[in-house]
Structure formats: structure tokens, C-alpha cells
């Protein structure tokens, strides 16, 4: 290619980017997959899951939070990075309670799909078996904190897209947990609605729409048919809703 004024190179492939794009944005537009769980195009990046760490000119950076700059040389698919991604995915598994065979999200779950993508066959680390509160108080939306991976997507989606402020993360260290922004702390007292982005964006089975479980039969669910690395390119949150749902 002629000049690298607006290009970066990922694993030897030179791609174009638009000013203001992050490395993740640029990669996704060019259909290059960089593993990620806490990022969703259209939301402010957070950088908490650490799966998208890439080597940028020899330094480790999260692709979702780093601006693309002309001429950057990036390494993404390396054995070390993928080994670390697998270890981080395993950490997310053991930290929560993930019993896939009994989970409504199974087959459509990104944590699971990340495991498939990385070839994860066991959880490797000892399980934490945390006891986390389930919240079934809302008529249409269920919150099962056991499966929450603290990706913060619901928090950001509610604030940035739904124009509400339903969720927050509280607690410190391994005690971090999702809370609901109501006096009772219950989802039933919040103004979340079934078609809010926040109610539908959870990558795992922590926020579920009630009475919708197991709709697609095994074999027909998203990640039965596709790799997460193929599905990722079509994702974008809807435009900001002015006043949520009335």
C-alpha cells in the first residue's frame, strides 16, 4: 500500500482506519477479530475483561481503549496472547457459577463461545463457588448474579443508550458485584423495560428475559452454528433512545 497515513498493521495485514477509531473499531471494520467480552461497538469502551490485550510496538495495550495511530504494528493472534486469553476466560468461569448444561443462555453465551474459540476444555483453576444473590423481582427480567462476569455492559448500555441508570458495580476485589439502582436494590423497583438494551446485552446468562429460555433447540443456537469470531462483526448497539420506554 502506498502510504500508512491512515493504516495500521495487525498480524501483518495492513488495514485502514478512520480518525478517532480505536484499534478494536478498526479491526472490526476490517473483519479482523480481536477477542473481547466487555466491549460492544457503540458503547464507551471499558477495558475490564483484558481479553483484547494486543502487542502494540512491543507494549501490551487493550485494543478497545487504544486509539489507532498511523503506522502502528500490532500483534493479535500469537500463541502467548491466546494462552493468556484462555487463562483469563478460565478465571471468569471459576469466579462465578457456570453450569452450562442447566443454563438458559447456553448456546448463545459469549463466555462459552470464547471458550470454544480458544479451545478451552477445562476450567483449570479451582472454583470459587461464590454465593450470589438472585433477583427475580421483575416481572419480565431476571438477574442471576451467579453468572455475572462484571463486564459492565449492562451498566453502560443503560446509561448511554437507554437513558436510564439501572445498574452499577459495587464492592471491591473478588467481592465486586452488580447492584441495581433502587432503594430496595431490587430490579422489580427499577424502570428497566424488556426491550431496553441493558436487558438484552448481557454476554452471559446473568440478565435474562423471562419466559424466553431454550427457544432455539440445540444445534440451532448462535454458537452451535457460528464461531464468536464470525458473529462479532455484525454487532452494534441501537442509537440512543431519548426517554427510554414509556
Amino acid at each position, binding site marked *: 500500500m502506498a502510504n500508512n497515513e491512515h493504516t495500521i498493521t495487525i498480524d501483518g495485514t495492513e488495514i485502514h482506519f478512520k480518525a478517532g477509531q480505536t484499534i478494536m473499531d478498526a479491526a472490526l471494520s476490517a473483519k479482523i477479530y480481536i477477542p473481547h467480552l466487555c466491549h460492544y461497538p457503540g458503547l464507551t469502551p471499558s*477495558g*475490564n*475483561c*483484558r481479553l483484547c490485550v494486543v502487542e502494540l510496538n512491543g507494549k501490551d495495550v487493550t485494543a478497545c481503549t487504544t486509539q489507532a495511530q498511523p503506522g502502528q504494528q500490532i500483534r493479535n493472534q500469537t500463541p502467548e496472547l491466546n494462552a493468556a486469553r484462555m487463562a483469563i476466560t478460565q478465571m471468569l468461569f471459576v469466579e462465578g457459577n457456570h453450569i452450562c448444561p442447566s443454563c438458559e443462555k447456553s448456546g448463545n453465551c459469549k463466555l462459552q463461545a470464547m471458550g470454544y474459540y480458544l479451545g478451552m476444555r477445562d476450567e483449570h483453576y479451582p472454583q470459587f463457588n461464590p454465593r450470589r444473590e438472585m433477583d427475580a423481582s421483575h416481572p419480565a427480567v431476571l438477574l442471576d448474579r451467579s453468572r455475572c462476569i462484571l463486564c459492565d455492559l449492562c451498566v453502560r448500555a443503560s446509561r448511554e443508550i437507554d437513558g436510564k441508570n439501572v445498574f452499577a458495580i459495587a464492592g471491591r*476485589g*473478588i467481592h465486586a458485584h452488580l447492584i441495581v439502582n433502587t432503594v430496595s436494590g431490587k430490579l422489580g423497583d427499577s424502570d428497566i423495560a424488556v426491550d431496553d438494551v441493558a436487558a438484552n446485552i448481557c454476554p452471559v446468562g446473568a440478565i435474562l428475559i423471562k419466559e424466553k429460555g431454550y427457544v432455539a433447540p440445540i444445534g440451532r443456537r448462535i454458537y452451535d452454528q457460528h464461531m464468536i469470531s464470525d458473529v462479532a462483526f455484525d454487532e452494534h448497539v441501537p442509537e440512543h433512545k431519548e426517554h427510554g420506554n414509556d
Partner: protein
Amino acid sequence: MMNQYSNHCVDFNASHVLHRLYEIQHTERHISAESMTLVADEFKMSVSQVASVVSFYSFFYLEPVGRYHIQFSNCTSCGYQVGQLNLLEKICRLLSVVTGKTREDGWVSVGETSCTGMCDHGASMLINGMPLARLDDERITQISCLISEQKPLEQWPVEWFRVESSIQKHGLLLSETLQPGSSLKKVLVSAPQQILNHIIDSGLRGRGGAGFGTGKKWQFCRDATGEARYVVCNADEGEPGTFKDRVLLENNADALFEGMAICAYVIGAKKGYLYLRGEYRYLLGHLQNVLKRRYAKNLLGQSILEQAGFDFDIEIVVGAGAYICGEESALIESLEGKPGIPQIRPPFPVTHGYLGQPTVVNNVETFIAATHIAKNGSGWFKSMGTKESTGSKILSVSGDCRIPGVYEYPYGVSIQQVLDDCGADNVQAVQIGGPAGTMVARKDFSRQISFEDLSTGGSFLIFGENCDLLSVNQNFARFFAHESCGFCTPCRVGTSLLTNSLQKIMDGRATPLDIHEIKQLSALVKRYSHCGLGHTAANHILDSLQQFSERFEKRLTQKTFTPQIDLDAALAAARKMTGRDDADAHLE
């Protein structure tokens, strides 16, 4: 009457959500859901923000603590394990209370907290937030008697609560005396850029650990565009084994505030904050008095020293038990009334800091050095130290030595020199820079304290011949697991996993395979975490494994694999419920 400190803190408690929550915690001994709703209303915050703040900081509790609430420091230097004696266990026994659980009658609760910065005073506790140091067997007995008699703290012997400034060696900065305002006066006759040039020329680098050029930082901030600029002093001093900022705050508060004002003059700030760790709340009255005096002398406030347009106010914000708030972006979050979660950098605070505006964050010692550089010139400062590390470093020396305390040396001093001065013989290892720093074995005691070699925020922990270094590693690992903010996966989960793995080694159940695992896990946490806490959290393990591998090997079993869990212990609950104790009710 603009130039009065009281105007700037009409109601200290209403000035910051952390202060308001502290007040509630102090009077109601916990923070109830109702209180959170109330505070959310008062501060125009969402209830979830208040709830996340309450659950982030260690000094806030959801359930009532005791009328006497004891928090033992669990640091290797000022912790509750004194030789063979476990002071925490002892007081629990004497007062019939279980750690972490408020006694049935609501009078007592006993728990642990990270290093309280009293390492020069031996075993220490905070009792209802007040430091009580020099604990020993006898004092613990006395304390438990007073608690049993329900004697109010005000009637306890005052000398128990005395905190001393154990300065053992005065160097460049500590031997300076400052006539309040004398440095500022000198500064005001020159243009800000000229002062800045002196600071740059002095080679002063940050004393908080990272060692960023102070002049360069101020220049960046001065050059950044913004609606306002802020000066923040980082007095969060949370690295276990560090207490020099405490001593500086006790003795050199004037020089500190003067340094902040000089910085304000240079960068064009109108407002400054001193972020004081919650453990040092006992210094609040003293610091406020110094501020009052400085306002009275027109060294703060409007038109400082009659210089029209030079207005600068300082407020104190007191933290509530979170080591991560020493990280500058987390500190700023905390200043803004949020949980202390480190932010994505860049942008750095110098361009996007407090309230999104250009902000200088410096350590206590850094500001004090700036004050004296402004007064004595950069040549004075550069006359000491090394090429990359000009001036002096104030160390907090503690652990296995005869004379713990604060020692100031020119940069470049060797570890051995410090050990000789503080009366430390038969030293096995020294931890430079606290748990996040570097473990140095005896063969390397000729190494020097400097940014070129071993940089440190000031913590200098000494481990003598008889010290079990593995238990030191375990202590450090627990510290990081407790202080991880929980934002990112590798540190949130990894620090807990490391603690468990070290425990397996301590228990003598680990195999060579486990050592391999712990190395990999350490490397992962170090490389993939979001902030400095995670980046450094496993250093002590990697250092130890490299330098003291035989100590690990000694604890290993010769088996090729051992269970993650103690299987026999895993049967205990069922044994108890069935009353069985036959051979089949046990496992090897």
C-alpha cells in the same frame, strides 16, 4: 473575611460524601440502606453510586460494628503477629469475640486492616479509627480490661495514643527549616515559567514511587488546555511499610502546603486538595490548624501575599481504607466521590484529571522538595544524589532492626549502609518499595536506592534470619487480594488464586507442578492487569521464587500431584452431622 480557612470548610462533613459517610459510620456504627438513600439525596447522587462507594471502602460497614471497633494492622512490621504471639487471637479470646463478627451485645468487634503506617511503633491497631501503637501482651490485656469495664476511650491513658515522629537521620530536606511563606515570597518575584525551570533543572522526580519528572509534569499541566487546574497532594501512603509521609505531615505540613501553593502558582491553579488516607485521620486537626494559620498569614486564600490574582485554596479530603486510592487516577475518582477505580491512561491526569481538568498529582515528599528547591535553588538540590536521581530519599525503615524510623539519605545509598545505620544484623532479605517493590537477598545488599537501580516510594522492610519468608509472601499476597479494586479480571481473580496457591505451599501440600503454576499465574497477573497494582502484585512471588527457590522447595511434597483441597477436611461437615468417625469417614 475571605481569607479564613473556616470559610472553606464551613461544614467539613457536608463537604464530601466520604466525610458524610464517615460521620454516619462513626455515630451509627454502620451505614444502613436508609442512610444511603439520605446521603444520595443530600449529595444529588444515585443510590447505586452511594452504595458502591460504601461497599468499596474498607472503613464503611453494612452491619453495625462494635462500640469498640478494633482493626489490627496486618502488615509484616506493624502487624498483630509478634514473634509467637498472635495479639488478634489473644484479644478475641479475652473479649469472647470472633474476628469479623460483632459480639452479640454490640460492644466489641475485632478485625484486620492493611498496614496502618505505624511500622516504626511495632504492633498497632486502630480503635474507633484512632491509632494505638506499641502493642504487646500486657497492653492487650489492659485494653481488654478497659473494654470490659466499658470505659470511654477519652478516659484511656493518653500516652497510649501518642504517635512519635521517629526521625533517625536528617538529610537534605529534613535538616531544612522553613519560615512559613519564605519560599513562596521568593517564588512570587519570578514568573511562573522561571520557577518551573528551576524545578526542571533540579532534576526532581516524583517521590511516590513512579519517579516521573516533577518539572515535566507541571509543565504538561501548565500547557494543557482546561477551564480550571488543580493541585492534588497524594497523602494516601498505603504501601505497607511506608510511614515517612505520616512523619512529614506531622512535622513539615507548612512546607507541604507551601509546595502545593508554588505548584498552583506555576500551573495556574485556584484549588488544591490534600487526599489523606483514612488511617491518618488523627492528623486532620493538626493539618487543619496549619491551614488556618496559613490562611491567617495570607499564604492561602485570595491574593496570596498581596499578589493580585494569585488565589489558591486547599481542602482536605479523607479516604476510607483503600490502598488503590494511592494510584493517581483512582485517587481522583475518590476525590470525585466515587469508588477508587483506576482509569484508562492516556489521558493522564495532567490533561484530564479532577473533574476532567488538568491536574497535578504529587506525593507529599515531592511537594516538600519543591518548596526547598524554590528557596535554595536547583544547584543545592542537585549537589546530592546520582545522575538520574538528584537529591535525597526519605526512607521508612522497619522490621527486624534495632532502630526503626525515618532515615533520609542522598540517592545512591546502598542497602547495606541503611542496614548498618538502623542496627540490623543477620538480615536475610530486604523488601524495597513495599509488597509492590523488589525483594533483595543478602548477596545484593550492595545495590543502591535510586531510580537507576532500586526505586522506592520509601518502604524499606527488613527480614531477619529467623523470618519465614514464605509467610511474608503469603502476607503480601493477601494484601493484594484484599486491595485489588476488582475492575479487571487478571487482578481481581488472579490475586485471590495466588493467595490460595501460596497457602497450598505453606500447608506443605504443593508439588513442583504447583510451583510451575504459580509462576505462570504470576506472570499473567503482572502482564495483563489494568493498573500498577496488578502489574506489581506478583513481583514478590517471582522475586522470591528466583532468589529463595530452596525455601519453596523445602515445603514441597515429593508427589507428582496433590489435590487442590484438603479432602479429609472436606469430610468434616458430614462427619459432624452423622456423628461418624470410622475409617471410611476419613480420607488421606
